[in-house]
């Protein structure tokens, strides 16, 4: 009898553990950038955002800029569903892979300063320990990393990494640990033959900048954020930089069945682990100001910008990627910028030259995995671009 009681006790113990609560309060905030209250498309955009948040997008924030109408921003839904904190245009959004554009700019600044040769092999700039992990490091150039033509595998595609991430959501990975998932793996294709997106390329660029300049985050701070006055942009500027009170909470549809988990702590640890390929947070208007600053020549030379917007084809022969910039054809309009997809957020930052239109959209729902609301997030983004480019 005692044994059965002990068995029952053990079972009760396993069942009684507390669930993991990752909710972090999000503070309300005040947008510092003057916005055009009479923006011509304000009403239909706001209606669009409201329609999608009513349909299950937790929260969304948008910023747009045109020379004719200046800045406008809108938001809908919640920055924190549990506390019913409304999403505001000033809330900090995860940039996810948009960080690659910042990294590319930083690398081109180093190239302009003569500290990096884009056509030199990466083995010249990497530490011996890192170099040894990369196949053909003496043949892959910095340019190939920038254009995703290196052939290096993406560590985020590694099944062991994905399993580790799900099992250890609060584990912080070092760059070396992330690289270990693809260490010494054969290249996926001959270097330089076409562009295939891989986060590992930009992680390596961050390590190159660290090696050349000391700290790539400081380089981004000094060469991008400070010249443009981006006070609502944060990138590895301190160990606790993601503990910003106005950073949105993050939600994840784990099973793709419309039940959302708050995974704010996991998202923060995950984003904080990534360097070069991710890791940035900013207000929507700050993202737009960054892309404007880049296009308007405030960050890199005209020659460097030309290099960034010289598109390399993908395997199918379609223009795909420049340097830190994705080629986009949306609603029949050519644009460029970068998308971002994370386990707890999704975003896009694009410029459409024909309309001189800049747009940023940030959603606090993970879009890396599938689900009904993730699908809606994609539809929202498409409809927004349609509406803006009409």
């Amino acid at each position: 009898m005692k044994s059965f009681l002990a068995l029952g006790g053990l079972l009760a113990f396993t069942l009684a553990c507390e669930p993991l609560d990752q909710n972090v309060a999000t503070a309300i905030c005040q947008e510092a950038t003057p916005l055009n209250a009479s923006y011509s498309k304000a009403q239909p955009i706001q209606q669009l955002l409201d329609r999608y948040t009513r349909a299950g997008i937790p929260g969304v924030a948008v910023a747009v800029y045109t020379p004719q109408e200046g800045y406008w921003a809108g938001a809908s839904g919640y920055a924190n569903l549990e506390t019913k904190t409304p999403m505001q245009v000033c809330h900090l959004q995860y940039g996810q892979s948009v960080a690659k554009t910042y990294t590319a700019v930083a690398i081109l600044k180093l190239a302009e300063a003569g500290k990096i040769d884009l056509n030199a092999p990466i083995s010249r700039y990497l530490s011996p320990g890192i170099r040894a992990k990369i196949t053909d490091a003496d043949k892959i150039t910095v340019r190939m990393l920038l254009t995703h033509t290196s052939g290096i595998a993406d560590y985020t595609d590694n099944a062991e990494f994905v399993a580790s991430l799900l099992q250890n959501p609060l584990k912080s990975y070092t760059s070396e640990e992330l690289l270990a998932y693809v260490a010494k793996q054969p290249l996926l294709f001959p270097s330089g033959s076409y562009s295939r997106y891989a986060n590992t390329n930009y992680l390596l660029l961050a390590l190159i900048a660290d090696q050349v300049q000391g700290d790539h985050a400081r380089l981004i701070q000094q060469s991008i954020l400070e010249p443009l006055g981006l006070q609502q942009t944060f990138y590895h500027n301190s160990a606790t930089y993601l503990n910003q009170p106005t950073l949105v909470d993050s939600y994840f549809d784990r099973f793709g069945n419309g039940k959302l988990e708050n995974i704010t702590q996991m998202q923060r640890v995950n984003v904080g682990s990534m360097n070069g390929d991710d890791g940035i947070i900013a207000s929507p208007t700050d993202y737009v100001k960054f892309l404007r600053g880049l296009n308007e020549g405030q960050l890199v030379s005209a020659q460097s910008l030309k290099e960034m917007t010289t598109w390399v084809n993908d395997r199918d022969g379609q223009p795909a990627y420049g340097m830190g910039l994705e080629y986009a054809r949306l609603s029949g309009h050519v644009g460029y910028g970068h998308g971002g997809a994370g386990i707890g957020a999704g975003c896009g930052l694009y410029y459409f030259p024909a309309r001189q239109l800049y747009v940023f959209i940030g959603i606090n729902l993970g879009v890396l995995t599938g689900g009904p609301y993730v699908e809606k997030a994609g539809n929202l983004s498409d409809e927004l671009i349609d509406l803006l480019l009409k």
Partner: protein
Amino acid sequence: MKKTLFIFIWLAALHPSVSRAQRNGSELLPAGRMSWPLMVSVQFHSLALPVGNIRPAFANPGLALGTEYRYNRRGNLLQSIQAGYYRNRYAGDGLFIVTQAGYRPHFGPVYADLKAGVGWNYTFHPNTTLVLKEGQWQPAGRTGKGLLMVPLGLSIGYNGPSLVAPFVGYQFFALAGYNPSVPVVPNQLLQVGAHIHFNY
């Protein structure tokens, strides 16, 4: 090691008939010949690739109960059924029922199991969830999702004179239908337990 020893002693004391068997072990049929033993195991779970990092598993304990039917007199072809629960704070708890066909070669009193089968696993969310109902986000507890479970297992056991036959096992299982874009996730269970044969 002390813990494992304790579990074995505790399991041995589970049933009065077992205690009797320990006293009169030589008079009983060898454990390996009998169907429908009670299988009790303590298990440790992690979401990981096969033979991946097993260290995190020890933070995620669970229990399983089952039995098995032996198809032949030699007892080397069998069908098992097992139900269990494991706690996993970070990847989500799991409640499962699984049946596996197995091959069990014997090497004296030592036996090995190679098993494969199919099952159902209800994986809970590790966190409380929110659902949109009538335009409002409302708490929905940790209810999860039922997933197809495809296990493949290896174990080694000992059939001594006692009616309690201890074993250690490694169970890899894939869960299908986790997410539309992550259709399969790998999992592993380390199991320590015993087949308890009753003196009918």
